[in-house]
């Protein structure tokens, strides 16, 4: 059986901030210059945002450039950062580092505490309004090449294959999405990105990429302990001094807080468990004081513990 093929000017794989921003920009440029370009974006999650997990603090600089009217258009940036605190933790103590000693990357004046999933949902709506064809629920499974070796597009995965690879009763063959240009915006360690890196030697001459895994939970706490826009970062305990990692606790709107922990995946002890380091981090007095008030109020509950990982740009600069 032949796969069905569809042609576009640009095919984008991945509906995170990178994929959505490029889709929007392409359509804006076409509208400005009065030309037509067709843009298709696929996302493996069941909807845009379903696979997005981030902190997150957002610097609105890129958004100001991309969609300067974001405030009127209802972008979900509702919690301007009101205070930064940085602690070096020991098992039961905490030293607050004066803000004047913190490097610039821990100063968040002017930034917002956001749910990146919600921001992506909103970007998805803006993209659709500009005419981007968004297909959630489709995973890019294979890169397609022209005879000269250049990228022709991607094929989406088959549906309904059984465990042994044979075609089941609901089998549906994937589709070919062909683009004059194809953008790979899969986030870090992309399934297709890995294949492209190998085929085109994209990692030659640069440092190996380093990664981190981030774990995060959303809690709803009592209003008395909630301070909209409060941003806390920590280093030290429970990580050993030779292991890179740190915690965060951000106060969002609606009495919610995002509490999370990032562990650098360059750690050396095979007994380490990032998930359990995060669970342990929450028992620190400086952190649990926020969560315990959730416990004492039956209307408050941990919402969605969830996990994903964080690319570190240590090597993209070289």
């Amino acid at each position, binding site marked *: 059986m032949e796969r069905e093929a569809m042609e576009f000017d*640009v095919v984008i794989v991945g509906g995170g901030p990178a994929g959505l921003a490029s889709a929007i920009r*392409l359509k804006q440029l076409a509208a400005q*210059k009065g030309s037509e*370009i067709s843009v298709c974006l696929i996302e*493996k*999650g*069941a909807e845009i*945002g*379903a*696979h*997005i*997990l*981030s902190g997150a603090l957002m610097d609105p600089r*890129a958004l100001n450039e991309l969609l300067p009217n974001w405030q009127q258009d209802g972008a979900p940036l509702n919690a301007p950062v009101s205070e930064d605190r940085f602690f070096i933790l020991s098992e039961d103590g905490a030293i607050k580092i004066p803000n004047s000693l913190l*490097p*610039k*990357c821990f100063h968040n004046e002017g930034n917002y505490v956001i*749910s*990146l999933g919600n921001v992506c949902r909103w970007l998805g709506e803006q993209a659709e309004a500009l005419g981007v064809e968004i297909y959630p*629920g*489709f*995973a*890019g499974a294979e890169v397609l090449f022209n005879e*000269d070796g*250049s990228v*022709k597009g991607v094929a*989406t995965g*088959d549906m309904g294959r059984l465990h*042994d690879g044979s075609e089941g009763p609901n089998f549906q063959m994937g589709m070919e999405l062909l683009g004059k*240009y194809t953008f790979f915006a899969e986030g870090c*360690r992309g399934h297709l990105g890995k294949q492209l890196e190998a085929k085109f030697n994209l990692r030659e001459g640069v*440092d*190996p*990429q380093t*990664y981190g*895994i981030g*774990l*995060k939970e959303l809690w709803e706490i009592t209003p008395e302990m909630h301070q909209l826009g409060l941003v806390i970062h920590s*280093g030290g305990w429970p990580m050993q001094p030779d292991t*890179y990692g740190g915690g965060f606790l951000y106060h969002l709107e609606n009495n919610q807080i995002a509490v999370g922990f990032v562990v*650098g995946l360059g*750690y*050396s*002890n*095979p*007994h*380490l468990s*990032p*998930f*359990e380091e995060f669970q*342990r981090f929450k028992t620190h007095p400086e952190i*649990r004081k926020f969560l315990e008030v959730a*416990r004492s109020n039956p209307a408050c509950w941990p919402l*969605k513990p*969830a*996990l*994903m*990982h964080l690319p570190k740009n*240590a090597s993209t*600069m070289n």
Partner: protein
Amino acid sequence: MLAAEACFDALAKECQHDELTAYPEAFKASWLHEELHLSRNFKPWMAKGLKLGSLMFGIDQMVFGGKAPWTLHNTKPDHAKLKLAADTQPIIYPKPDGVLNFDRLSSVFLSSTNHEEDQPCHLQLKDAAIPISVNLAQYDAPEQRFCPAGVYEILRDENGSNPRLQINAQNCVHCKTCDIKDPSQNINWVVPQGGEGPTYPNM
């Protein structure tokens, strides 16, 4: 955005399928490049330990404003940095109390992740023997711990013999840690059927 601009210009010139060389050039000239460049040494310094790392990154930023005449390099990929189990200390973690801290499975449940079980496994082992012969023998099967969703389990017979790896692929939350950190680089994460995986409402 910069890639989109380079692409739009190329389409306007009726190019296709070629490399967008204008994109890396525009990136180098952008504010983002400037920002990333100024903090490039953060992680490499921190890899040298919290105290020395903080001190040196502090000097890097405060004295040189990020424009220090050095760039630290990372030479080993993450998976190659794991030491042997025998050469390291076991870590004892507190038991979850179900109030403040939780176990993996209740967290996976809240991520609402789901995969059709009857499909080709999307966590492919290049060599089916390695999880036991190398990973268990030398590293005490670290995939049981670095996977946050409890996908990898070592099962044994009642008398503790015959260890084997079970892969609960339906619990996967698509974090790709196994692909990155497996010391044998024996796990290949591939996309499962579209529409599966976690369903985060607002993360």
